């Protein structure tokens, strides 16, 4: 197996041994319970929001917390002195984060579809969740590479959520006109929510969807190239 395959296998082992997969599964079950209690008429409204929360916000937190934990254990450092290469190391971590988001999305979506007949564009949902989780992995890494400690990370993520959630909320309440939504696409959370809504057959302007998609691909790629990859070694190596 290539080193990337081995790193990937190691990441999956880590997700299981550190009970991250299990915890993520329990959170998913909680979402399912809530959907179940809300009942079928409201399910179609809330399922997209739950999937958004899981793929976007949970990913930021999980990736950030994970990086801190691994830094404490010095395992990032010892990986750096293997012949694996920085890109393979980072890629394996990104893919395992995306996997976690997909796991919950698929379970929630199947549940909503089978039990409450919520209609879903499955292929688009999976593709979009991959993009959204990728973008939020980049955001999570960027935050945790700059945070001095775990508390600072939580504060940053909290601030990020509020700053980007407020315009979306105002927009939803009808404070802003529809033209404003184009500007809102520059909020990763708004773009993500719009993309997920689309997969649940809500009326979405296609041009906005494409802007959102492009935005959530370009931004993380830039973050990886200009911030995460250059800064990661320094963080990994620090005692």
């Amino acid at each position, binding site marked *: *197996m290539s*080193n990337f395959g*081995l*790193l990937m296998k*190691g990441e999956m*082992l*880590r997700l299981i*041994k*550190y009970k991250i997969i299990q915890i993520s599964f329990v959170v998913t079950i909680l979402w399912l319970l809530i959907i179940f209690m809300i009942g079928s008429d409201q399910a179609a409204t809330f399922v997209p929001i739950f999937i958004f929360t899981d793929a976007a916000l949970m990913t930021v937190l999980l990736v950030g917390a994970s990086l801190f934990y691994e830094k404490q*254990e*010095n*395992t990032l*450092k*010892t990986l*750096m*002195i*293997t*012949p*694996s*290469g920085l890109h393979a190391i980072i890629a394996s971590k990104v893919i395992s984060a995306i996997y976690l988001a997909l796991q919950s999305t698929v379970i929630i979506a199947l549940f909503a579809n089978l039990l409450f007949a919520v209609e879903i564009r499955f292929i688009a949902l999976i593709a979009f969740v991959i993009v959204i989780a990728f973008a939020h992995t980049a955001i999570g890494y960027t935050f945790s590479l700059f945070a001095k400690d775990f508390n600072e990370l939580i504060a940053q993520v909290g601030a990020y959520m509020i700053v980007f959630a407020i315009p979306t909320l105002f927009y939803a309440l009808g404070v802003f006109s529809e033209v404003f939504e184009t500007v809102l696409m520059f909020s990763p959370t708004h773009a993500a929510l719009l993309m997920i809504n689309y997969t649940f057959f809500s009326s979405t302007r296609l041009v906005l969807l494409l802007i959102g998609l492009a935005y959530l691909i370009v931004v993380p790629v830039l973050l990886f190239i200009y911030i995460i990859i250059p800064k990661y*070694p320094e963080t990994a*190596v620090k*005692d």
Partner: protein
Amino acid sequence: MEKVFEVKNLQFTYRKNQIKAVNGISFDVYKGEVFGLLGPSGAGKSTTQKILTKLFKDYQGEILYLGKDLKTYNNDYYEDLGVGFELPVHFSKLTGLENMKFFSQLYKNHRDIETLLKAVGLYEDRNRMVSDYSKGMKMRLNFVRAMLNDPKILFLDEVTNGLDPKNARIIKDLIRQFKEAGGTVFLSTHLMNDVEELCDRVAFIRGGEIVEIATPRELKIRFGKRELKVEYFNNGTTSEALFELDGIGENKAFLELINTYEVETMHSGETSLDDIFIKVTGEVGNV
């Protein structure tokens, strides 16, 4: 002798606090030797090791590895290296064996993991989670980690840190075996004991600068007091007397003493490396 590393005027500054952690050091490491980097806390030992292991890349000065600029090597460089870190570096929720298997796979060459675990006395505990290991057990696992890929060069940072004398002995014996099999060792430490028992040559580093490079023997001779202490029996008790080593053959008092009394023991005035450490670095070494 073949040079493994040639370090010329190496400098490194931590960007964050602009501390010049390494300030123009030069030294060579020869193939098959144990080279010690010795100095007080904060002297720049770990920083130097991190530069040589390519963890810090933006240094000034020149480093040649086997005659070629270190910067020209890619990640295959790590196939040659075994790195023992100062602190435990394992997945705490995996067992010792799982950890070693994971890291071992990442290399082309492999040593037998179970043999290594047996050698450091961790075989019985191989299936326990690392979070249940003691500090000393984790440090021994660090050593196994460093040996996994059958390295040509071992970098060891404070390798006996947290080990009891018996386990420290085991690790030191393994280092000696590694050297006898042709391996090169770069050892950073502030423990005199390690240096005295293991090192062929030692560089004293202080405030990011090398103040002395020599063999432990040379140092002892250079810094040793040239005197002789004689302990002898005198009316049923032990007395002692001190003589200058120079011209001792004509020293009347000395000759009379050894002709008159029964000598119990004599010591030449060898200074311990501990004293030398304090003299050279101006600081008290922690033993």
